[in-house]
């Protein structure tokens, strides 16, 4: 990509899917890891090792939440190390990939 590096910086993108009820706990962990920015999508469904989860189910509505966060590599390591031991309680999944952050108004990573 020919975009100048003043505009794009290399970062990590972390994508976590957990039970919406565990969101509060996860947020505390993220705060511990000094995370300053993340995005949360609620009322999400899915299928995993514990079966199907459907937020629109009539009698058994179960919500997942997707958390997306972009951060620097070092920060990503810290987050993974903080979250990893707790993933067992949260269920769900945690993915990491490379991305480029477009430098914008304020630093929120």
């Amino acid at each position, binding site marked *: 990509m020919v975009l100048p590096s003043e505009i794009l910086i290399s970062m990590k993108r972390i994508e976590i899917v957990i039970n919406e009820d565990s969101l509060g706990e996860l947020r505390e962990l993220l705060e511990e890891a000094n995370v300053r920015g993340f995005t949360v999508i609620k009322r999400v469904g899915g299928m995993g090792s*514990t*079966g199907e989860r459907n*937020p*629109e189910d*009539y*009698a*058994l*509505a*179960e919500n997942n939440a997707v958390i997306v966060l972009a951060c620097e590599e070092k920060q990503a390591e810290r987050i993974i190390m903080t979250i990893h031991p707790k993933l067992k309680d949260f269920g769900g999944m945690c993915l990491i990939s490379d991305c480029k952050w477009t430098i914008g108004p304020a630093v929120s990573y």
Partner: protein
Amino acid sequence: MSLSSLLVPAILFFALGMFACLIKSDLKFPPDMHKMIVIYLLIGIGLHGGKALASSDMASAIPAVWAALAFGIGLPIVAYIILRWLGKIDPLNAAAISAHYGSVSAGTYMTAVAFLAGIGVTYEAYPVIMLAIMESPAIMIGLVLAGYSRKVMGGATKADKGMYKHLLIEAFTNGSILLLFGSMAIGWVVSDPSYKKIEPFFELIFMGALCIFLCDMGMEAGKRLSEFKSVGVFLVSFGIAMPLIGAACGLFVGHFLLGYSVGGITLVTVLAASCSYIAVPPAMRLAIPEANPSFYLTLSLGCTFPFNVVVGIPMYYAAAQYLHETYYPLV
């Protein structure tokens, strides 16, 4: 009881919902609409019950409480035995399904109330207490059955203490139970003039709102019907036989032990015959994650609920009438 008494609007709307599902109509109510109507109906039924109780003799309510506890504990055990020995259902699924039958379905109860109102039959104030009480013991007996099953199956008992405590608390702080008890208490304490102010919202338009609720339930039941195949013949038969067993117990208790009127017996019978789909499913999902939710949801929503609404209620009413005219109660 003529045929036209079966033409209760609420039940017809249930049929409409099932029909919509059968012909694969794209009719769909917003998911939140269902939640809102349930909140409204639970409060309405609680307030009405609380008001009725306030002018009743409370000593006479004690037997109803005992009956509720007996149903909540006894029926799941009966269900468990049938499922295990007759159906060879694996222990954990049997435990999860059983718990549902000790509990009650507020929707079925309200349909029965609409049915009685439609034919102008009165009833005692006490069954609504039973409605509020019966969810919790059923959840607890479900936990006990699950623990027993795990022991029977040997291996790691896997009884996560923390989770059990959590579930016991949940059995009492559950939103719908709280709403029911809370509004019952409010209905109890408020003065008549105060109650008159909120009556139009919670009583006058109640029966109409119930129609929309049942139309939605009809669509859900229709959807679940299509899962009959994956559930198997035995479980489907169980979903019809178990309410009949519950109904028999309900009729006996309602008439002989509690000595209620025909309307009251009908309601007690409906409580015993019905099967939870509000508080118990999430509790069992947490307590017995190994059990297959599609089993207990299909049974509860696709089988027992429609059976009770369409066939059960008028049948239980006829039986209550027969008992009432033929035998003296024991009390």
